[in-house]
């Protein structure tokens, strides 16, 4: 849990968001997922974190970034989103992701490509997870990638809290989450869960 011993920093606090929509045909081995619930949860977490003037950092998933852009632009929250993307995917980055930087809502950071896709993703995640002294991370939906991110985040940010929401399903539903008083990770009332999480993170 967050406490008062955390070192002071001039930078706004940071939260990592690891989320994706499980793809039909590839998601059978994970908990049944509800895409609409997943979108609700991502939107609620983004609103809560950005409203507290914290930074929200994530990988550039093509179906999640548009949701984040929608939230940031709806409220006019600028320069709080940071999206990491491997150079490998530069040519297929959707317009919404480019708009984040172009319209001043966030920053798109590319990481080098060094070999196989797995290695490139690991480089991207490593850079993202060491870019800030994170308060915590929130995991929503997803498949194998979210499990990889959970493991690496735990390794590189051992002092940060990890909240894996089980309500929307997917791989995150099977991950252990931080045990925090008042945070019901199984709840499907995502605005309430998001408020509990940002409070638990001390935002």
């Amino acid at each position, binding site marked *: 849990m967050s406490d008062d011993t955390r070192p002071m920093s001039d930078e706004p606090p940071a939260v990592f968001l690891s989320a994706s929509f499980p793809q*039909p045909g590839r998601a059978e081995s994970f908990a049944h997922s509800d895409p*609409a619930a997943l979108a*609700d949860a991502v939107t609620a977490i983004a609103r809560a974190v950005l409203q507290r003037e914290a930074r929200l950092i994530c990988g550039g998933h093509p179906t999640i970034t548009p949701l984040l852009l929608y939230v940031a632009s709806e409220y006019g929250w600028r320069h709080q989103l940071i999206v990491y993307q491997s150079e490998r995917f530069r040519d297929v980055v959707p317009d919404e992701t480019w708009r984040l930087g172009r319209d001043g809502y966030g920053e798109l950071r590319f990481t080098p490509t060094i070999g196989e896709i797995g290695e490139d993703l690991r480089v991207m995640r490593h850079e993202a997870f060491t870019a800030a002294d994170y308060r915590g991370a929130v995991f929503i939906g997803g498949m194998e990638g979210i499990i990889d991110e959970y493991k690496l985040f735990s390794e590189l940010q051992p002092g940060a809290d990890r909240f894996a929401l089980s309500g929307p399903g997917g791989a995150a539903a099977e991950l252990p989450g931080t045990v925090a008083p008042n945070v019901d990770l199984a709840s499907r009332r*995502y*605005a*309430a869960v998001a408020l509990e999480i940002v*409070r638990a993170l001390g935002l």
Partner: protein
Amino acid sequence: MGRAGLARATMSQAHVLHSNRCAGLRLIHLLTDDALARVLDEVELQAARQLRRRREQLLGSLSDFLFRAGARRSPLEGWALLAERDGHPAKVYLVTPRAPSARDLRAVDGLREQSGIADCVGAVVHDVADRDAERAALLGWIADTRPLTVEALTEIGEELVP
């Protein structure tokens, strides 16, 4: 369902009136009237489902906040509930998935009056950023002489949950 949970309607060649390939562009299919009607029906259905979901999310989260604040909650018709807390006036909350409107204020005012509780107040609850200053001024003018408010869900959570 397709990627990201978006609905998909499968079309066959029978639904295509004709196809054109413009220079350098993708193949464009012109749908028959029946096929187009099917697509529009699906869009309408999905929009209705999403609105319902948003209302359920709003009402559910609001109910959680009120529960945490020790309020007794009773469901009312039309996506609303009555909350009663010791030391506070009874309050009717009406949720809306869109930017709050004068019609919402009128509806919550009616529910407040129907409750029959003296000093009962009303609130329209939303979770959208409304930047329409003219509309905000209109709502403020309506609420000014009535026991009504327009409140963002997150602000209610901040206020109610210790």
